[in-house]
């Protein structure tokens, strides 16, 4: 089944261990002015990996392919061979907007046609988070200000880009890249009081969450109760044993890195198709004696095998149910 896939399915952990963020696998590239000529420039197949928090420097003489490698990693060029994964997704195959939300690039120079102010320039980094005609939200303003403060350029916000020095300009360009990749400083932890603290320390939060949410209206005694019975850690959760499958999750947010005020956004996802439910569907009509799946199951299997839900709203089988934003001040 996996051989038919062009992209890893969500949850396909074999591709990248959770530690590795960027994985460059046997990537090569060649540039020729036209296909019949010998390539003017080649980048030999190369591989490396990068983990969160690591700084990676690419060194090499002029015309050795440093910029080409960056273009390949940022997805604007497709490699001739090999693949590049960022968080398990192939960078070149991501939709332009999603790619821009995950990868920011500081170019050697950013030319300007009409004068703009530094804050307007930094605000460009928020473009991938909105539609064609959106207006900047308070959150965007906060993020842009934070990004400028992070590079020590807060006082440049209202200056014209063509009236500041080259070094200051570089800092503003860096601030735009920070604003582009910005996640609100929000690290979720389940409050120890709501769950057994030993359990929390052992299980990563997203694992616990994956089993916790059930289809709307679920009851322990209701229809499909057997198929949708919680597995793993969630099976012993009192909310499932005596409740309706709903749950209260309390998050604790560390405020260490927040300047004076912060906006915190919480999002609740609804698990659309529990994997074990789907598993039951697949195995139900499977005949172990002949190793043949029924025709409909085969069709479903083929369909799922070609489904690319990467970077969509149902990424990792989750669908947004509710989201809320709160302002916190000292």
């Amino acid at each position: 089944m996996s051989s038919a896939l062009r992209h890893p399915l969500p949850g396909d952990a074999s591709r990248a261990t959770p530690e590795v963020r960027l994985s460059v696998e046997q990537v090569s590239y060649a540039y020729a002015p036209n296909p019949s000529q010998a390539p003017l420039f080649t980048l030999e197949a190369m591989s490396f990996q990068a983990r969160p928090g690591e700084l990676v420097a690419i060194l090499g003489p002029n015309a050795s392919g440093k910029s080409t490698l960056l273009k390949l990693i940022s997805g604007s060029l497709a490699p001739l061979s090999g693949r590049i994964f960022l968080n398990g997704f192939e960078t070149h195959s991501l939709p332009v907007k999603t790619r821009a939300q995950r990868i920011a690039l500081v170019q050697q120079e950013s030319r300007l046609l009409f004068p703009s102010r530094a804050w307007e320039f930094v605000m460009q980094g928020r473009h991938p988070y909105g539609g064609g005609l959106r207006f900047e939200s308070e959150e965007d303003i906060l993020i842009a200000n934070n990004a400028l403060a992070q590079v020590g350029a807060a006082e440049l916000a209202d200056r014209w880009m063509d009236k500041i020095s080259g070094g200051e300009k570089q800092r503003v360009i860096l601030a735009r890249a920070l604003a582009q990749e910005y996640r609100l400083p929000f690290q979720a932890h389940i409050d120890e009081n709501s769950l057994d603290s030993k359990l929390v320390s052992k299980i990563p939060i997203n694992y616990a969450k994956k089993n916790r949410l059930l289809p709307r209206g679920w009851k322990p005694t209701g229809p499909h109760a057997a198929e949708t019975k919680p597995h793993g850690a969630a099976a012993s959760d009192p909310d499932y044993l005596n409740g309706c499958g709903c749950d209260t999750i309390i998050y604790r947010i560390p405020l260490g890195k927040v300047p004076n005020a912060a906006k915190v956004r919480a999002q609740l996802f609804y698990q659309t198709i529990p994997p074990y439910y789907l598993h039951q569907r697949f195995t139900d009509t499977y005949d172990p004696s002949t190793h043949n799946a029924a025709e409909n199951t085969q069709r479903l299997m083929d369909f799922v095998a070609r489904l690319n839900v990467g970077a969509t709203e149902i990424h990792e089988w989750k669908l947004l149910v509710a989201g809320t934003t709160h302002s916190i001040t000292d």
Partner: protein
Amino acid sequence: MRPLTLTRLLLRCSILALILFAVVVVAMKLGAVQVSLYGLGKDLISLLLHRTSSLSSDYGMIVLGIRLPRILLAIFVGASLSVAGVSFQALLRNPLADPYVLGVSSGAALGSIVALIVEGRLDLSPEMAGLITPVGAFLGATITIAAVYILGRRDGQIDSTTLLLGGIITASFLQAVIMFLMTTLSGNNLRGSAFWFMGDLSTPQPRSLQYLLAFGFVIAAGAIYTTASDLNLLLAGEKEAMHLGVDVPRVRIVVYIAASILTGLAVSVSGTIGYVGLLVPHVMRLIFGSDHRMLIPASALGGAIALVIADTLARTVTSPTDLPVGAMTALAGAPLFIYLLRRRIA
């Protein structure tokens, strides 16, 4: 840091709309037949409020039957050319781009003339015949911008000097073809060369064409406006825009086609009026900044204001003879073009 909000956008647009209204009232008053401003204003307001169904006095025919259609045409043409100018400037990353300078207007004019010739050979109903000219103009504009775009590319990048020269050369070539056609086919009803080279708003348009113009403007300008944020980023270059999440090929095709529609529609009814698409966006940029979410509606309204003023001057300065309106816009626009060119080189 003061990002644009919807309230501010609407407020600024309503101020421009009020100015446009005032300009329209003055333009209706001025002309060979003198009309009292007070009486006209009072009558217009009561007409707008549906108190009366027509202007009371005998100048009603002149004001509503002759001057108003011409003013409405100026509003439409000015808005179209300005929005097309803003779009070309952003897309080609060239502050000197404008439908006239790039030769797109001349391409649209040639398209209109070819359509008029074809229409003369075919036996069409008058309704259909009126609609064939804008279609020809649109095709002429699209082909010309594609040709100029290809001419302006060097090593896969748009080179702004080559692009401008390519546009100017294309324009003069197309004008020569127009001149040739007009001389050899003088028997056909092709209008005068002054119309095609200098622009003219005095020709009354049939109703079906008026609807087409209004409809085409709303669709094309609306399509361009949906890409306003993308155009802001395109100013930094196509590669950079792509890294910031802009679907560059889609934006390019939408804006090229929509801007060609705007140019084609405007040229098919008014000939080639130069420099509006250059002058208005620059003035609006000086006032409101270069954010296209503000700049596009401001240019549409500003272009309407500018062309109503230019056309009013064109028909009153040498009254009772009309000047071509393109002469008025070139008088103001050509010096600005030179100023911008000098500033870029400096």
